[in-house]
């Protein structure tokens, strides 16, 4: 069928099954928007900033497991998208971003709104394309979706010059992809899997170290099965919250810089780390030479480059977690005895009783942890939770009762402030039946606040709970601990009227200073079904604890506030 390049882009998006595209038009992408106007195969949501479009597509992808799609114009449209691309890249989100480019004849001439998008995005995309001929476009679009969702997922950028979207040519969307240089390893080496199985059977203190790869591979059920059949304790990374389920007795909690005591001690004392889709990030390991120093390591990852990158691995297994776990479970079936590790579990239970994850609640002032636990109690599994980056992110990761994978959406790798609100819009579009809560701070929320307008226009009722301490709290915490209380540029005492801002943009705002007010505000926000800011005044100097000081060993945690800092 004959059509222009712009129509081909739309046809490909429809063929890939994407129902919602987030974007922002501009000169170089206008041809595509003209075709979007004429079609009804997908809806387009106009965010009020390109960065938000990418985060929204990211949130959509993380909540649904499908490829997110976003669209931006050339030049500043594209550069605004870079933070979103980098965020998705670091957390391996499957995403296709279409960017307009100046016409081929103008490329290299410093044309209006020209920037080298492929050059800039190379280190923050899984792959990228500059389309040079219309005849390549259908194949490139097909490949982009394939590369985004296969292997270790990631964002793919397709940069299309304006004359190519205008040109008319024959469109046949390919059924399959053939990239001879790209064949991800998924099956896992059988001999290595067998060896890993024997290592598990021989271990005395095995520990499942569960990372975000288990979410991407939809392997939660298998992870739970493996843990249960062996009675093997587990710890989750920030990206894996929900994989085990909060009430799973084998789950110790989250490990790392703000991990709980028993999780970090489990990692410090285990004799066999079973790493599933985790990548030994520095925020998880602390001082590398002390990390799991008594343990052999089984490392299952679809990305071979993650294996042996930071930690020496005894049993490297390159493959898709789901496929590898199926084989591992088959190998362990009938041979593994949960009794074998009961002493180990007892040790960890004692640690958990010794220093449970807790906080000092108060009747005078709202504690942020109380807010998180309260929302968990009221909404629990009915909600999808997103967050921005900072103290509120850690409090949410620590205290929310995550029940399933894809319930928790946050920027873990890049740590992008401003991610939470637009990601919540994407998640809500992907799962309209769920309540979507964005836990945010008074710092983060300002970095994409314009999405109030988007949320109001498209009636996407997400609830932003601003845990407001009038500080860039996490930086303030470090300044308190390591910079002798010199609060350089972290005091946010000058505040906007959050309630007023929400109202001005078509939403609802609540200022909350007591627990009762919070309950009422949340109830009202859910009932009103509109975008909301719930501005919660919390204890100003609350710290995220436990904390492993940067570069310290995991077992050296600051467990409670020193007296003078209270």
């Amino acid at each position, binding site marked *: 069928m004959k059509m222009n390049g712009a129509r081909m882009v739309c046809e490909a998006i429809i063929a890939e099954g994407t129902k919602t595209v987030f974007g922002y038009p501009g000169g170089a992408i206008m041809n595509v928007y003209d075709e979007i106007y004429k079609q009804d195969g997908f809806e387009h949501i106009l965010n009020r900033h390109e960065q938000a479009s990418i985060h929204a597509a990211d949130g959509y992808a993380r909540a649904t497991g499908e490829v997110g799609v976003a669209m931006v114009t050339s030049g500043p449209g594209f550069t605004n998208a870079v933070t979103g691309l980098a965020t998705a890249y670091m957390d391996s989100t499957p995403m296709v971003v279409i960017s307009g480019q100046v016409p081929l004849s103008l490329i290299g001439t410093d044309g209006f709104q020209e920037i080298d998008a492929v050059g800039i995005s*190379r280190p923050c995309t899984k792959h990228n394309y*500059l389309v040079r001929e219309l005849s390549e476009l259908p194949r490139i679009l097909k490949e982009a979706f394939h590369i985004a969702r296969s292997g270790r997922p990631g964002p793919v950028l397709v940069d299309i010059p304006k004359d190519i979207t205008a040109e008319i040519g024959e469109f046949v969307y390919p059924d399959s992809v053939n990239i001879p*240089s790209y064949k991800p390893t998924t099956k896992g080496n059988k001999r290595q899997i067998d060896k890993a199985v024997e290592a598990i059977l021989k271990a005395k203190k095995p520990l499942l170290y569960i990372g975000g790869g288990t979410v991407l591979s939809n392997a939660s059920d298998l992870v739970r099965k493996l843990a249960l059949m062996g009675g093997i304790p587990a710890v989750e990374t920030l990206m894996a919250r929900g994989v085990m389920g909060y009430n799973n007795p084998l789950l110790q909690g989250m490990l790392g810089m703000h991990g709980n005591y028993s999780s970090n001690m489990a990692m410090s004392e285990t004799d066999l780390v079973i790493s599933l889709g985790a990548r030994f990030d520095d925020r998880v390991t602390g001082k590398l030479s002390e990390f799991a120093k008594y343990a052999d390591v089984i490392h299952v990852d679809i990305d071979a*480059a993650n294996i*042996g990158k930071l930690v020496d691995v005894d049993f490297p297994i390159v493959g898709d977690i789901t496929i590898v776990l199926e084989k591992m479970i088959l190998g362990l079936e009938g041979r593994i005895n949960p009794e074998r590790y009961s002493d180990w579990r007892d040790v960890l239970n004692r640690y958990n009783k010794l220093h449970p994850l807790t906080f000092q609640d108060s009747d005078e002032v709202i504690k942020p942890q109380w807010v998180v636990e309260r929302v968990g109690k009221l909404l629990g599994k009915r909600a999808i939770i997103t967050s921005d980056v900072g103290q509120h992110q850690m409090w949410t990761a620590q205290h929310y009762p995550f029940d399933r994978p894809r319930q928790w959406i946050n920027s873990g790798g890049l740590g992008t402030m401003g991610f939470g609100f637009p990601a919540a819009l994407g998640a809500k579009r992907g799962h309209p039946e769920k309540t979507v809560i964005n836990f945010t701070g008074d710092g983060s929320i300002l970095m994409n606040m314009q999405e109030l307008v988007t949320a109001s226009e498209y009636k996407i009722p997400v609830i932003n709970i601003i845990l407001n301490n009038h500080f860039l709290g996490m930086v303030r915490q470090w300044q308190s601990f390591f910079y002798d209380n010199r609060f350089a540029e972290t005091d946010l005492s000058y505040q906007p009227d959050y309630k007023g801002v929400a109202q001005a943009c078509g939403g609802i705002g609540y200022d909350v200073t007591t627990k009762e007010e919070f309950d009422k505000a949340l109830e009202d926000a859910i009932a009103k079904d509109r975008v909301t800011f719930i501005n919660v005044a919390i204890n100003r100097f609350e710290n995220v604890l436990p904390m492993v000081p940067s570069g310290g060993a995991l077992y050296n945690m600051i467990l409670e506030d020193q007296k003078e800092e209270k």
Partner: protein
Amino acid sequence: MADVRRVISILVENESSVLSRVSGLFAGRGYNIETLTVAPIPDTNRSRITIVTKGSKRVIEQITKQLHKLIPVYKVVEHDEMVEKEMILAKFPIEENLSNIQALCQAYNGGIANVGNNMIIGMVTDEPCRIKHFIEATKRYNPIEVVRGGVVAIER
């Protein structure tokens, strides 16, 4: 971990941005490039990039794995049994002794490539470590310019 020198040979799809993907990976991840050569492989749509690098064992392993992840990369060969050659051109003033320069170049698998009215150009092709000796040896003839070609290598 002590640094080792490695020759890495990369087979890639011959497309416009592939060299920037490879060199950008080295720059972005802080890997070291000592020499880099690239040319199309005859009768294919592929190119071979040969890179000489230095790093710890872990870094060398990461380099090969990260290269593998690039979509247009077919194959990464990291081998310590490679036949390596490097070519070099050196320009000398015409006042220098032509026959001595010729003898020197011949000792390193080369000869005189060109003689003009004010300069002599010598050419040699040899193993990288011998190339270093050659450069050292040219110094007594006051070279005006020395151009190294970078290492090319093939598996033994």
